[in-house]
Every structure is written in C-alpha cells, then in structure tokens.
C-alpha cells in the first residue's frame, strides 16, 4: 500500500502539480508531520501506523491551513484517511482552504481501525491505495443511550470533573480554527477555575462541534484525563444526522443546516 502512495506522490511532485506534499515521516525513532518537496526525498515516508494501525496520526489539515495561509497561491498535496478527507471538505465549506489548491492523497483504514473508530466512512473519495472497509456505527452511543438517566448523569459528571482545562481537544482539532474561541470568553468560562463548570464547558464545545466534527478522534487521543470526548461529539453528530440529515464532511459541497434559513428538510 505504502509503495503505491509513494509512487503517486513522487509523480505529483516531479510533474510539479504540487509545491509540497504534507505527510508523515519516520524521524529520530518517532513519527512526525513533514512537508515532502521532491520525489527523491520520500525515504522515511510513513502512514502513521506504529504498534497498531493509525496510532500515530497527526492533525495534518491543521498544518495545511497554516501553510496555505502563508502561501495562498501554491497547491499542496496532503495525506488523508477517510476522516481527514471529511475534514478537508469541512474546511472547504468553512472557507479555510481552497479546493483547487489541495490535492488529497487518500488511503483506507484497515477493518480493525474502522471498527475501533466506529467510522462512518473509513475510506476517502480520493482513494489511492487500500481496500474499502465497513464498520458498525454508533454502537457506543447506543450503549450510553441504553443506560438510565441517573447512570448517564453519574458517568458524565465523573468524566467532566476530571478535565484539567488544557484546551488540548481544541488545540489538536483540525476543525478548530477560530481566532476567538468561546471557551476563552471570560463571560462564559471563568478564568483559572477548576474543575470547569460541569457540564457547560464540554457541552459548549460539543455544540460548536455539531456541524464541524468529522469524527477523527484526535481529541480523544489528546485528552490527558481520558474523557471520552469522541463519544460526546458522536452524539451531536447523530442528532445532526437524524434531525437534519447532515454529517460534517460526508458529502463534498454540502452546506450546513446551521448556516441556512428556513424549515428543516
């Protein structure tokens, strides 16, 4: 799989279709984001799989936004999984990236990873290598919904109270790009207070993620308190889907119901 991607990227670079390819590199015994600039230098290129598949993923789209803000005229290639591509579509929709300035190079996730993520679409449209897999969805959400109100209350209060307010979930999120963040607005979130206001702090973020979250799970992995944030955002996504038939980044060019006037479809 990796060789096919390498060849594809080398082609893009030598044909000068892209100014650089944003991917991952094996460096100093670690996996790091890297901008590959010529086809020859693809040694060390990796897909971010270490002990298990996808355990060394990075928010490449976030870096891509930084890059294209500095070089708006250049076209970049970027390594994407299904979730990353949903992120790209979301960022096109929210005017943070220009579609014709980005060439996604996609690969699919193995069944084991798709299942662990309960991924809606574990393969990108721009599939260069890998097989399409399917997975069961919203299993963990259904499990949570199955518990009674008191049990849910107990569970989430215990989770939210662990928060150390590191803002890691926001900082790692490829869909968080706002210059002013509600979570830093002192009228909403008291500065220097711990624990955060339960459940307001986390639900505020969940609300803001409603039409953005592409379910990449990086927030879950970045949380030092192991709060199951992904489960929370999966629920918001489920509500968006059942009430409005919208899933962030699932279809290119689809507009968010939250930015449209008129009755729900």
């Amino acid at each position: 799989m990796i060789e096919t991607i390498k060849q594809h990227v080398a082609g893009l670079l030598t044909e000068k279709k892209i100014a650089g390819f944003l991917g991952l590199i094996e460096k100093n015994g670690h996996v790091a984001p890297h901008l590959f600039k010529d086809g020859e230098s693809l040694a060390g290129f990796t897909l971010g799989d270490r002990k298990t598949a996808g355990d060394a993923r990075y928010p490449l789209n976030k870096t891509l936004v930084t890059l294209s803000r500095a070089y708006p005229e250049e076209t970049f290639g970027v390594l994407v999984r299904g979730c990353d591509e949903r992120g790209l579509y979301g960022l096109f929709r929210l005017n943070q990236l220009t579609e014709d300035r980005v060439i996604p190079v996609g690969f699919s996730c193995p069944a084991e990873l798709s299942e662990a993520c309960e991924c809606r679409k574990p393969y990108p449209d721009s599939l260069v290598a890998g097989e399409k897999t399917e997975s069961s969805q919203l299993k963990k959400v259904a499990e949570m919904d199955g518990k009674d109100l008191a049990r849910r209350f107990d569970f989430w209060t215990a989770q939210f109270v662990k928060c150390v307010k590191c803002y890691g979930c926001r900082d790692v999120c490829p869909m968080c790009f706002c210059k002013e963040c509600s979570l830093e607005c002192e009228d909403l979130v008291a500065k220097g207070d711990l624990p955060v206001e339960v459940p307001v702090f986390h639900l505020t973020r969940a609300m803001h993620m409603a039409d953005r979250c592409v379910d990449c799970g990086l927030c879950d992995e970045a949380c030092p308190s192991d709060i199951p944030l992904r489960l929370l955002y999966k629920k918001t996504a489920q509500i968006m889907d059942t009430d409005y038939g919208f899933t962030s980044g699932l279809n290119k060019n689809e507009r968010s119901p939250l930015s449209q006037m008129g009755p729900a479809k």
Partner: protein
Amino acid sequence: MLDFTGIEKERLRARWVSSAEAPEFVEEVNAFIDTLKELGPSPLKAAVEAKKEEQKEAPA
C-alpha cells in the same frame, strides 16, 4: 445533549415570545417555574462536589 449527559431535558426550555405578548410570556415563565418546582433542585452541584472529593482522595 443534556439528556445524553444525564440531565433532565425539561430543565431547558427555549421558546419564542413576541415583545407584544406580555401575558403569554408570563404564562410561559410561570409554567416553567412550576415544572422546575416539580423537578426539584438539580443534583448537579452536589454531585460535582462529591466527585471532586473522590478525586482528591484517590489521585489518578
């Protein structure tokens, strides 16, 4: 989302009332107050305090 995190969804109500409809507004607020009285105080505050104490006793 409140429901998902275990808080009675009856505790939140959003309704549009025109500024010209004062009686309707009063009725709405009174009805909400009645609902809240029925529900009683939220267990949230006490639960957060209790969890905080638990954390102090057994640091992760």
